């Protein structure tokens, strides 16, 4: 098995009022091709920050990120083939779809930018792929349900045929029944498109259902590496306990 993603000694810090605030330090892991890798931890542990660095949305990091043999460079936006290979589904479908664009535009524009032909037909196919009727193309995001919106977001992420799909709590804003639909859809698409997933979640159930391997994060560091056996013992309390290891009860001062 080849390594699809390898992250070594990744540290990420943000400038704050007085000092630099270190959100993530010394994170190292690798993901094998075709696997679903989980980044698990309570809110504020830095798991989403790691994901956004891999996505190229936050370039202020140090260390090494290698994706399918292409090294990302800190301080630079990702371009070219690597950009197409890495796509992301955001946590909240309410805020990741542009409120004033119709679905046809949301899905058609990326294709247009990349010079594709026959965009209308391609939008129909993209909607069909995620189990939505092509008739929805004329609607605005606010005319769709939460689950439908997340399906549109997934369809958009798949447009450029990525090899790595980053999932930032893709179902935490959804009902359990809708969550079940979306998780099924993601697993089906992973098989049919031969993708690798990195899934961020605080939900031990979702992680246990989806992931082959993972890491438990706490306070910006990796607390524990998890294989399937370790995942079986992962409980919600264990995830939450990672938040209470050493923090006081307050954020800020």
């Amino acid at each position, binding site marked *: 098995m080849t390594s699809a993603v390898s992250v070594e000694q990744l540290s990420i810090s943000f400038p704050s009022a007085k000092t630099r605030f270190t959100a993530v330090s010394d994170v190292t892991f690798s993901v094998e091709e075709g696997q679903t890798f989980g980044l698990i931890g*309570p*809110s*504020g542990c830095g798991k989403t920050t790691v994901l956004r660095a891999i996505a190229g949305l936050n370039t202020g990091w140090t260390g090494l990120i290698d994706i399918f043999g292409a090294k990302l460079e800190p301080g630079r936006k990702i371009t070219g083939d690597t950009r197409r290979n890495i796509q992301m589904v955001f946590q909240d479908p309410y805020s990741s779809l542009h409120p004033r664009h119709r679905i046809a535009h949301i899905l058609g524009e990326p294709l247009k930018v990349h010079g594709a032909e026959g965009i209308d037909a391609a939008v129909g196919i993209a909607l069909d792929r995620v189990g*939505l*009727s092509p008739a*929805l193309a004329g609607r605005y995001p606010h005319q769709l*349900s*939460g*689950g*439908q919106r997340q399906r549109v977001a997934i369809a958009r992420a798949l447009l450029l045929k990525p090899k790595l799909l980053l999932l930032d709590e893709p179902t935490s804003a959804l*009902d*359990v*029944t*809708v*969550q*079940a*639909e979306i*998780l*099924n859809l993601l*697993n089906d698409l992973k098989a049919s498109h031969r993708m690798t997933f990195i899934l961020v979640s*605080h*939900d*031990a*159930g*979702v992680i*246990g*259902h*989806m992931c082959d391997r993972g890491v438990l994060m706490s306070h910006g560091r990796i607390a524990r590496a998890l294989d*399937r056996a370790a*995942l*079986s013992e*992962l409980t*919600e*309390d*264990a*995830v*939450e*306990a990672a*938040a209470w290891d050493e923090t006081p*009860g*307050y*954020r*800020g*001062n």
Partner: protein
Amino acid sequence: MTDALLTVEDLTISFPSDNGPVPVVKSISLTVAREIVAVVGESGSGKSLTGRAIMGLLPCRAHVRASRMLFEGIDLQTLGPAGWNGLRGSGMGLILQDPKFSLNPAHRVGRQVEEALLLHTKLSARERKQRALDMLARVGLPDPERVYASYPAALSGGMGQRVMIAAMLINRPMLIIADEPTSALDRGLQDQVLTLLRSLTEEFGMGLLLISHDLQQVSRYADRVIVMRQGEIVERLPASELAQAQTAYTRGLWAARPSFATYGTRLPVFEDSGRPS
């Protein structure tokens, strides 16, 4: 049940549209005594509207009709604005989904927790503060003095929700309606907050109407479960008997929750979920 706090019979809620009124809650009946009743359903099942109708919080274009809607012998359907103000905060309390939106960021926590005392009692400032500090400690917040003096922005999500619970319980209401009280929180925190709600409900002898979409989760904390779908009650049963649920819908809701054991399988979904597509 003879000692019911809340009795609702044949509650129907409809909204006007171009094609005449559309019923979204269809003739449902339920009672809540000093116990925890969970109302479970998908979005669009009418569960939140039911909770809001009981609190008298629906927009005025909503049309609410019931053959009986009694709380502690008071007919909620004939209650005027003054009557509602007296009832909310002292007789009934509502806990909402996200503390970020229910706590005012410009006011200190202490003031918001005390507000119900200020409105409904004649306690002095010192007594109010003492009651607020007691309540903050009671909901498991470390260092209540410090929480009392801080602004909501300084609290994490779980702490914010505990503050909300403290603010709701300070006047010892008889009935709490909690509408998805934990869905903005991490899984682990959700369990902590629900455990807290359960123990406080028992300690204060209150009734709790717990509205949620997650059957597996709430059933661990509820005495009885009411399953709603598309405005109707599909099934009602004691939480302990959920494993033997009669309807396919309830069983599906139960199995929809992913876990380590469901790895590599497809989760059950409802093909005819009835949501508009």
